[in-house]
């Protein structure tokens, strides 16, 4: 069986969630309360059809006049008069004034059919909008005729094969006040504009789409100067490709902590910490590094104005203005309470779609908690992260943790969706607060597990070696004191050694001296003894010689010379 042909609306996000647009050649009912964007949705459908898909359209208005309509949508950049001149669009204002009309007897609405038919034929329209046909119920009193004629009208539209949008006011407990859903059974779209805690959110839901799969969720949408945009809840799953490319965090020693290479491209980084822990500075470094590489960075600010951030970051030696001027860096600043969460997300989504940044910074996402519950923020951030990951965009989000004790939990429970989590802690000791940083987790890399103290200096963030003593990390003056103590200890150590060496030297000298004295004495005695021995021998010889001489002189018989 052939699948249902669809006509693209050209409305951002809508064609995605419907798998192609509205059912071709069939009427679609678009209902919602006053001011929820029905007219805008339908005019966008026609203008996009005329400009993007070469499908001329007829707008039959039962409420606003052609001039009013043209004025209302001019702010969105829609030039209706030009489209009308080009025969791409035809506006017909049907005015039904009950006070001018008297009803006598039987009638039908063939006049309307002829009028619409003529309009369609005169520009070869493929798209038709009837906005809001329910006004007829106010102008004409014979409901029986009206209902029969409406049924005939929708049948007729189908026969003409035009893709039609019929708008209807939301009724009490019904989709439309006059029960139009009874007649239009192919597709029903509900627009909703609700205010929750003084914050308005627009939502769209596809109530029915015969013959087509569609999302049944409520999709937030927004209306801004770019027209209408629906935020697709793209259920991308987890199919995004993981890049192995690494990008610098902008802080050399932080890169070192992350295997010396930095973050993974396309990953999501969470920087959490207490107030004043330096989250924004880490974020600014990251944006600065991206711009240095010539990549585009988009920064969402929820607490500070761009001017303020530029000034503040200049104080730590980061000149963001330069990147803004060169078109590499763009800020989007909005108070969280300006819109509902979905609107923020839609805005962010839209900015990302248009600017196509390679990195995105959101500072701080935790402030979104002021406009929504934790569960909502988590769901929203998950959607944003999914979207960014699908595009390979690296995201850095900061989150403010409350309280003095930093537990390993952020207020927004988004920790499970982030890849790298940097925790900034304040180390409080000796009457001062110092900043510390550690990598709580970083998927897919062997990261450092040390706490590093970090300083905000006039040339950026500096990470110092951790000083670990007595089971705690020393920071600030405690670290300095400790360093001084260590230096002193080292000095005294040196002195001690020197002293010992000197002592040894002295001992050796004493030993040498004594040895020399002994040797002197020995040599003296040796000499004495040797001479004594010599004399002794000489005397002995002389005695013998004397005896021989004596014998000779006595003329003894025996030669004493043979003896001995």
């Amino acid at each position: 069986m052939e699948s249902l042909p669809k006509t693209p609306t050209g409305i951002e996000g809508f064609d995605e969630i419907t798998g192609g647009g509205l059912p071709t050649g069939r009427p679609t009912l678009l209902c919602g309360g006053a001011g929820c964007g029905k007219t805008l949705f339908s005019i966008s459908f026609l203008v996009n059809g005329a400009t993007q898909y070469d499908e001329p359209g007829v707008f039959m208005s039962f409420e606003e006049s052609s001039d009013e309509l043209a004025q209302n949508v001019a702010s969105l950049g829609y030039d209706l008069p030009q489209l009308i001149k080009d025969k791409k669009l035809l506006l017909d204002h049907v005015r039904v004034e009950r006070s001018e009309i008297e009803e006598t007897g039987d009638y039908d609405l063939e006049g309307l059919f002829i009028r619409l038919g003529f309009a369609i034929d005169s520009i070869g329209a493929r798209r038709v909008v009837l906005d809001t046909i329910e006004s007829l119920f106010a102008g004409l009193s014979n409901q029986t005729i009206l209902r029969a004629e409406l049924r005939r009208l929708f049948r007729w539209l189908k026969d003409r094969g035009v893709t039609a949008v019929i708008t209807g006011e939301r009724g009490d407990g019904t989709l439309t006040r006059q029960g139009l859903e009874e007649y239009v059974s192919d597709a029903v779209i509900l627009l909703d504009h609700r205010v929750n805690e003084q914050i308005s959110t627009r939502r769209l839901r596809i109530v029915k789409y015969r013959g087509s799969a569609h999302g049944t969720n409520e999709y937030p949408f927004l209306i801004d100067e770019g027209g209408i945009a629906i935020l697709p809840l793209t259920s991308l799953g987890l199919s995004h490709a993981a890049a192995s490319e690494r990008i610098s965090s902008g802080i050399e020693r932080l890169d070192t902590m992350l295997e010396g290479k930095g973050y993974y491209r396309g990953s999501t980084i969470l920087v959490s910490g207490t107030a004043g822990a330096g989250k924004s500075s880490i974020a600014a470094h990251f944006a600065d590094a991206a711009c240095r590489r010539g990549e585009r960075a988009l920064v969402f600010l929820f607490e500070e104005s761009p001017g303020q951030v530029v000034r503040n970051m200049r104080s730590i030696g980061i000149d963001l203005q330069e990147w803004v001027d060169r078109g590499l860096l763009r800020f989007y600043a909005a108070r969280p309470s300006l819109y509902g969460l979905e609107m923020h997300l839609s805005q962010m989504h839209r900015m990302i779609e248009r600017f196509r940044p390679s990195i995105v910074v959101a500072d701080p996402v935790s402030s979104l908690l002021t406009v929504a519950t934790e569960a909502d923020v988590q769901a929203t951030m998950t959607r944003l992260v999914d979207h960014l990951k699908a595009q390979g965009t690296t995201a850095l989000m900061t989150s403010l943790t409350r309280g003095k004790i930093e537990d390993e939990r952020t207020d927004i429970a988004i920790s499970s969706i982030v890849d790298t989590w940097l925790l900034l802690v304040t180390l409080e000791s000796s009457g001062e607060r110092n900043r510390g940083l550690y990598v709580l987790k970083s998927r897919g890399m062997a990261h450092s597990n040390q706490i590093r103290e970090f300083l905000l200096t006039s040339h950026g963030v500096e990470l110092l070696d951790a000083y670990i003593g007595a089971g705690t990390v020393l920071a600030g003056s405690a670290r300095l004191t400790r360093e001084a103590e260590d230096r002193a200890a080292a000095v005294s150590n040196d002195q001690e050694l020197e002293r010992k060496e000197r002592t040894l030297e002295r001992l050796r000298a004493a030993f040498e001296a004594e040895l020399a004295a002994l040797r002197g004495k020995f040599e003296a005695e040796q000499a004495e003894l040797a001479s004594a021995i010599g004399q002794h021998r000489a005397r002995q010889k002389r005695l013998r010689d004397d005896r021989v001489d004596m014998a000779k002189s006595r003329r003894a018989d025996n030669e004493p010379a043979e003896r001995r």
Partner: protein
Amino acid sequence: MEIEATKRLDAGAQPCVDQPDDVHLLRLYVAGQTPRSIAAFANLKRLCEEHLAGRYQIEVVDLIQNPQLARGDQILAVPTLVRRLPEPVRKIIGDLSNSERVLVGLDIRSPGDSR
């Protein structure tokens, strides 16, 4: 055939230049020669003869032949009778079978009364 569709002026009408304040300029929009159209024309003709003899002009517009004319007078329902003169413009929709309502709609009170 009751309606002579292309005929602009009805035989009973007087030249309007003579009595501009008094003349009734009536335009009947129909869509084809349907029984309802024919009935409406007949009813209108009869009422005019009875109440506005000599002071009316009926123009019949068949939207099937001239669809572009539907827009100008804001025609939705057919048949629609538009009283273009005297001002203000009034519209009466339906087959004009209820004479009483038609007379109220046209602001005509009694036979021969010329306001």
